[in-house]
């Protein structure tokens, strides 16, 4: 299920995991870390916090934009006997946060279960190598450990992505595992049949509020987690800066020469924030207007303008690319977007807002 990184080689990877991307910082933090570490942890809580929220003086970059206290609560939770549940809208960097935490705490973010309608208990705990099972019978050799079993045996953080998309009965197989901290393998004899969690094991689950939601989780499972809500970025400038940096990096990768224009990005991010409906309830788009989505639109805008016309993206490109984002599958969303461009955009000051307004006809039906 998880490829070993040493074999793959870093260069060839599209997106190496956090512990590889930030290997230098992790090593430096580990070397300078003299605060007490919780048992089984690779870093102390303070060093882990510095790794995630950054520390300019120590040359550690900021990797997660959001409340510091959220990161602190998350880390302390993992040092207790409750799991950590990150909930929020799609695209609020829940998975990124869980990846960073796992990399900091366990030195590896690779033990990951991807939740979905077809997830089974086998993919969470263990399964068998059936050729060996048939020839040798159940044995340690024929056992194929899944992330939970490995995490417990090795004392590492296990990430459970999109846990609410799993069937409820599959979710509930975590119950005994989280409270008793042991997996029983009835097929194996004696001590081999009991795998106890070593220090350092814990679970970070992420759940998406747009999916079936955490309300359907069983109360018993909820009790075993501390919940943290990851909210969209509250500050306009922070979000703009993030979109600018991420989009510029993506555009470089795609071979687009000019960086995105800041004034165009301002209009783009402003539109996203407005449609996200941070202020008004009941007005939400059914499509997700996340920061991540804004980055991908900014990327598309740059690619489109550069390869079609050889220039940086304009407000008109934004409109053209928005149609595919904001109105993926809902005519109501498209209507709302059209209404925004027709009524709201001209009320804002600035030439790019006017350009956005004038380009509204590019929004195909």
């Amino acid at each position, binding site marked *: 299920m998880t490829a070993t990184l040493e074999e793959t080689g870093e260069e060839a990877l599209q997106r190496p995991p956090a512990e590889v991307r930030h290997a230098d910082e992790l090593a430096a933090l580990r070397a300078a870390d003299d605060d007490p570490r919780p048992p089984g942890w690779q870093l102390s809580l303070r060093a882990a916090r510095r790794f995630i929220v950054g520390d300019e003086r120590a040359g550690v970059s900021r990797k997660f934009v959001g409340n510091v206290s959220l990161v602190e609560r998350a880390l302390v939770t993992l040092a*207790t006997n409750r799991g950590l549940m990150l909930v929020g809208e799609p695209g609020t960097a829940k998975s990124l946060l869980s990846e960073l935490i796992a990399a900091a705490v366990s030195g590896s973010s690779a033990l990951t279960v991807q939740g979905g309608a077809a997830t089974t208990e086998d993919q969470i705990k263990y399964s068998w190598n059936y050729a060996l099972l048939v020839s040798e019978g159940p044995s340690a050799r024929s056992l194929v450990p899944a992330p939970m079993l490995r995490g417990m045996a090795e004392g590492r953080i296990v990430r459970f992505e999109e846990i609410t998309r799993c069937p409820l009965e599959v979710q509930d197989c975590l119950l005994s595992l989280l409270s008793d901290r042991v997996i029983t393998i009835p097929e194996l004899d004696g001590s081999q049949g009991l795998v106890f969690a070593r220090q350092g094991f814990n679970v970070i689950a992420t759940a998406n509020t747009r999916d079936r939601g955490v309300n359907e989780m069983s109360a018993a499972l909820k009790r075993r987690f*501390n*919940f943290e*809500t990851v909210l969209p970025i509250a500050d306009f400038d922070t979000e703009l800066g993030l979109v600018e940096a991420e989009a510029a990096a993506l555009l470089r990768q795609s071979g687009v020469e000019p960086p995105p224009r800041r004034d165009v990005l301002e209009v783009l991010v402003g539109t996203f924030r407005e449609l996200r409906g941070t202020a008004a309830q*009941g007005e939400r788009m059914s499509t997700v207007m996340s920061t991540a989505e804004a980055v991908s639109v900014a990327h598309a805008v740059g690619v489109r303008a550069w390869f079609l016309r050889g220039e940086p993206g304009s407000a008109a490109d934004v409109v053209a690319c928005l149609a595919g984002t904001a109105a993926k599958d809902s005519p109501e969303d498209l*209507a709302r977007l059209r209404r925004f461009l027709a009524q709201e955009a001209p009320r804002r000051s600035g030439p790019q807002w006017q350009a956005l307004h004038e380009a509204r006809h590019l929004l195909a039906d």
Partner: protein
Amino acid sequence: MPAAASQRPAAPARPAPQDPPPPAVFLGVRHHSPACARLVAHVIRTLRPAFVLVEGPADMNDRLDELLLGHQLPVAVFSHYRDEQRVATSWTPLCDYSPEWIALREGRASGAEVRFVDLPAWHPALADRTDRCANRYADAEARYAEATRRLCERLGVDSADALWDGLFEVTEPDTDPEELRARLDAYFDLVRGDAEADAGDRAREAYMASWVRAALARAGDRPVLVVTGGFHQPALRALSAQPGAAAAPADWPAVPEPPSGALGGSFLVPYSFRQLDAFAGYQSGMPSPGYYQRLWETGPTAAGQGLLRAVTERLRARGIPLSTADLIAARSLSEGLARLRGHPYETRVDVLDGLAGALISDDLDRPLPWTTRGVLGAGTHPVVVEMVAACTGEAVGRLHPDTPLPPLVHDVAAHLARLGLADATAPVTLDLTKDGDLARSRTLHRLRVLGVPGFTRVSGPADGADPVFTEVWEPRPAAAAREAALIEAGAYGARLDEAAAALLGERVRAAGPEVGTLAGLLFDTVLCGAGPLCSELLETLAARVGRVGDLGPLGEALAAALGLWRHDRVFGVARDRLLGAVVGGAADRVFWLAEGLHGAPGADLAALRALASARDALRHAPDLLSTTPETAAEAAAAIGCELSQICKSLIFAADGVPVLVLMDGASRVDVERVRAELGAGKVTRADAAVVRETTGYAIGGVPPFGHRTRTRVLADRSLLAHDVVWAAAGTPYTVFPVEPKELVAHAGATLVDVREQHG
């Protein structure tokens, strides 16, 4: 700090005689900070100053004894001012752990002469601040915002309050007070950094410095202690050390007098933690007084535990289950957070974070309130609401019985006597169309809003559209309770009208985005005749109706505003421009929201009612709306019913005889056709009073049958075009579905064609 008085150490060594006379000692504090209060007490005990100068209104100097009568804190010095140009009110709140209070109390106890040295509250230097109901001790917080934000970012803390707690309130048990003082000085130097002192600050600082110089001249070689907000401290230090300061006259500076013709004064009023708290009010002070009171009384460990206990009790009282395991998880989380953040004890935010992490098993819509600043929004998680309330605490101050009464008590007594209401024993009936009675009604409504017992309204108009012009009030003798309530209400103003307006204003700001609440407040405001507040409220409403997400409350607000806009003659707000903005905004919003509704089977009554109000707005005030009838029709379709499916019940007067006409919602009645149908001489729309008299219902809620009197009923044939129509059920907020034929039968109506025909 209860132990302070008994534990006073022996007098410290005086400076040796050859030392130069000691300059003033400046102590910069944060208002309402227990750590600063403790430091003030320490400095007074060790320094034994001859004079303690405190940032507080200098016009209270003659009445400092009044402050020390033995009140139960919190109390506030309430100052009011009125001249032809402006009206100003302000508060100087004091609680047990206010550094200013401790300076006053400990200074007196140590034999020092204590003086308030700041300008009076009415002075333009204080009054020119942008916020209308100013809290004297809230000024610096806003100025620091930018500097503290940067500091928070660098130190990895979410909010200025969390930063402050970690730096000053919850420190190592053996922290040397002098070290804390040095740290405070460094902090205030840092945050004052780029904050610009405005003209008002400079005037106040110059005035305070003149007191410092006078005190120095009087003190000779004895020390002088100056306790002010940290913001002013660097400037004061510089101003007081100016050359020639030593030669300053020993006379105290004059206290500015209000200009002639102006009214002003300061009074003590009881205050409450709720009023003090930044989360509840829009002015920031130090938040969570309930927590800091515990911190002050019992220290950080007990304060943290007390907070935990208070939250637990509140949640259990509200029926929110809370297991022992949850509490253990919360405790271990907050302990871990305190260690991670390097706090020797759990701070307020550590405890709150621990509770939030362990107790909330839902996704939140907004950040936890202690990570930001300001008012709790609608939809805040109930557990969070209880946590914040537990921090606020419920303490309410009480004045010593010998305290002079606030001016409001006298104002109300004079008002009631002048209006002949003072000794009323029988029910009072007021005709609102008469000036004298309207004034009486306003006075009684103001008392009602302020929660002063004495009169209860038995009947009167229920909302803006209600065409009732008489009110009946029943007197309830409760003299003692009335005076207590008035003293409490005295905190809101010196005059009854001001106090009622200030309280309503507070409610408006605390109402959050709930438009339904605001609509209720709007009617109260109209009843109280609070004109200027009415404008403020209407502006708020106009700004908010555009953001409401729920059709129900929006419809209520629209109905109330439209009713006032169309019919209100009594209170004089009909056709008011701002009211029109509310009507227009709300109606546009209804159509906008309606367009977003889709797919729900059947019709939602609240939505229908909102749509009906919006239709009325479109009909009677088309100029206020940006929505056109065409878009309105589309929106109606989305609710699952056509505009024409809403049955209107209209009362006309045919030669003075009332007639009921049932008409579909999309058409207008052609009065000429009604006249022809009835063979009458003259047909007009009946006025609101006639409608009420005939049907027993107010305009907007008239049902198609079940009226008080039997009238002739005409039903327009267009109603038959539908399978089902919706009619009002007696109030503006309810409708019911009915088959048109059944409707006609029940109403005993004659089928006619009286709608306006197009083309």
